[in-house]
């Protein structure tokens, strides 16, 4: 059974259809990259998967671990192991990172029939995870993302991912706004969390992230439709020839 199955997905924002029938299958342990030009619907797809209510699904189906994902609330999706790393992580003044993560992790654990962690066990776990991600412990007691640089915010997203241990992570433009050093270290974090059981969907505009997070499959999204799929070489070809090459190619096939 596949982990995620997207079938003929149509979605709209403010009554305007953005996704025009997406089909995608993700199995355990796989990394899929979704590439596309600005406005192609990449972030819409990520948002629909996470359950943002500004998007409405007009047609199609999404099965996640065999269940109807679209019927679940955002928190249920997260508790079932779906994770979205935000393109623009929110600042939450007055709520420190570690309190925030404790509430989140315990909600996930409770949902999965596990005991809630007490303060000591949780702190121990957090410290372990900061080492994996290479994040300074001082970030634990700072308000979530408040006053963080762009790179620190993205790294904090990956830190959340490390703590929550999701089965399926959707990284929405995690490379945007990062310099090359930050890009490398954020990617290293993602790679360290990789396993045979969990899967990742990397949504990106540029190929360069895929040098560090190497995908098994690459899909090209143009105007709300996946027009081409292939392996990592497709990303390199795109980088060389640009999205116009795909557009022309599609028109020829039609």
């Amino acid at each position: 059974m596949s982990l995620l199955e997207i079938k003929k997905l149509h979605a709209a924002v403010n009554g305007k259809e953005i996704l025009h029938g997406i089909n995608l299958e993700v199995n355990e342990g796989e990394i899929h990259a979704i590439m596309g030009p600005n406005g192609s619907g990449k972030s819409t797809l990520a948002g629909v998967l996470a359950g943002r209510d500004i998007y409405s699904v007009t047609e199609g189906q999404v099965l996640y671990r065999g269940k109807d994902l679209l019927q679940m609330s955002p928190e249920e999706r997260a508790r079932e192991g779906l994770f979205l790393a935000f393109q623009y992580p929110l600042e939450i003044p007055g709520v420190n990172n570690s309190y925030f993560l404790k509430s989140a992790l315990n909600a996930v654990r409770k949902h999965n029939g596990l005991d809630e962690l007490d303060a000591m066990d949780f702190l121990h776990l957090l410290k372990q995870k900061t080492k994996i991600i290479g994040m300074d412990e001082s970030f634990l007691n700072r308000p979530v993302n408040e006053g963080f640089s762009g790179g620190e915010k993205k790294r904090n997203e990956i830190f959340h991912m490390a703590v929550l241990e999701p089965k399926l992570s959707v990284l929405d433009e995690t490379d945007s706004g990062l310099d090359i050093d930050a890009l490398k270290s954020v990617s290293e974090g993602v790679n360290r969390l990789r396993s045979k059981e969990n899967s990742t969907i990397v949504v990106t505009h540029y190929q360069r992230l895929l040098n560090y997070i190497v995908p098994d499959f690459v899909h090209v999204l143009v105007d709300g439709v996946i027009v081409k799929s292939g392996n990592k070489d497709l990303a390199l070809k795109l980088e060389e020839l640009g999205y116009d090459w795909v557009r022309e190619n599609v028109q020829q096939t039609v």
Partner: protein
Amino acid sequence: MFNKQYKNMQSADKNIQWYKSRFEAFEQGLNGEKSKPVHALRRNAFRIFSENGFPTTRQEEWRFTNISPITKIEFQPVLNFEANGISKADIKEYTVAGAARAVFINGMFSKELSDTGMLPDNVIIGNIANVLEEDTGTVQPYIDRMASAPENAFTALNTAFLRDGVFMLVPKNTIIERPVQLIFLASDSKYAYAAQPRNIITVESDSRCKIIETYIGLAGNTYLTNTVTEILLHENSHLEHNKLQVESLNAFHIGTARIIMHARSNYTSNVFSLGGSLVRNNIDVVMDAESSECTLNGLTLGTGTQVIDNHTAVDHAKPNCSSRELYKSILGSESRGVFNGKIIVRKNAQKTDAQQANRTLLLSDNAVMNTKPQLEIFADDVKCTHGAAIGQLDDEQIFYLRSRGIGLDAARDILTLAFAGDVINKITIEPLRFQVEKIVFNSLDNSKARQKRKTVSV
């Protein structure tokens, strides 16, 4: 409309007659005390009260807060102590660990529940009823000073029925490490009563202390708390004054604090208003000498149909003083909040530095906030800023929390508590801070539950 107003006026007049009869009965029971100077103050205050009557919404200071529900009830002033079956177990939840404690039941001192033994020997702390009986010369000047200007009906009413409260004097060069907690309990009762404690607190030069006023309604009954606290801060003295108000949701609470500050003194007020159906807090600070600092913080939590009104006034009467003010309100259901922040800078009060901020979080479409900064500046070399903002919880932030597995209700609670956090964090007494945090957090759940029930019944 006219008829309604006329009717209200009638009921207010009738209510004054009621207090008149109570005042006469009070006088008859006084015997010897009638000839003491304090009783002249009472009589004068009652005259002012009966001449002016209760305020109406036509008066600017009461424009947004209609107190007519208070004038429709005949509250019996409590003038004698009754334990009403209240034991230490009843106050356990609200006592602050490590604090000295003076406890009042319906405004009257309870020796049994109080414990002030651990304070330094030179600190004078007692209850006013006892002090008046003994008629010690020490307190007379303070009593003379305090009741001299009953500027509104409620203060006048409090003075007219002046009976008990805390008298506290921190002498020169004394630092009290332990906080002093004043607990005012309202007991359950078959009749509506008025508890009217009067507190007089003096901190002499180079002394420091922290006090907590805690107002608790033990049952859901209707009563009136009409409390007045007067504070005099001498040169270079410091006072942190916390107030936690969790009255019955059917009770009325009028709380007045008047603070007079001498040179280089420092005053911080943290007011947490959670209970009461109709609440009015008046805080009047007079910075009467140079180089004083005053900080006023407040947090209001409104649920159901509560009306919570905070009126503050900071009078920069002398140069080189600074004031900081942060009042926040969280309003759910059909609750209503009022904030009126007056800052007066007198003509010679140059180099005044005043900042004021009022922020409100509306948790429901039916909650209302009326906010009014009021700056009256007569000096020309001053720095004064003020700002008011009213908003709702941010949908994007809520989604961010939910996307990490946190449920919708919990996400709202976390963000609401974060909004309240910077006011709660002003409390420097750690056990009190934890207590307030817990009470605020639990109240958030309550407000939500109420909102839900309401939605269902509609």
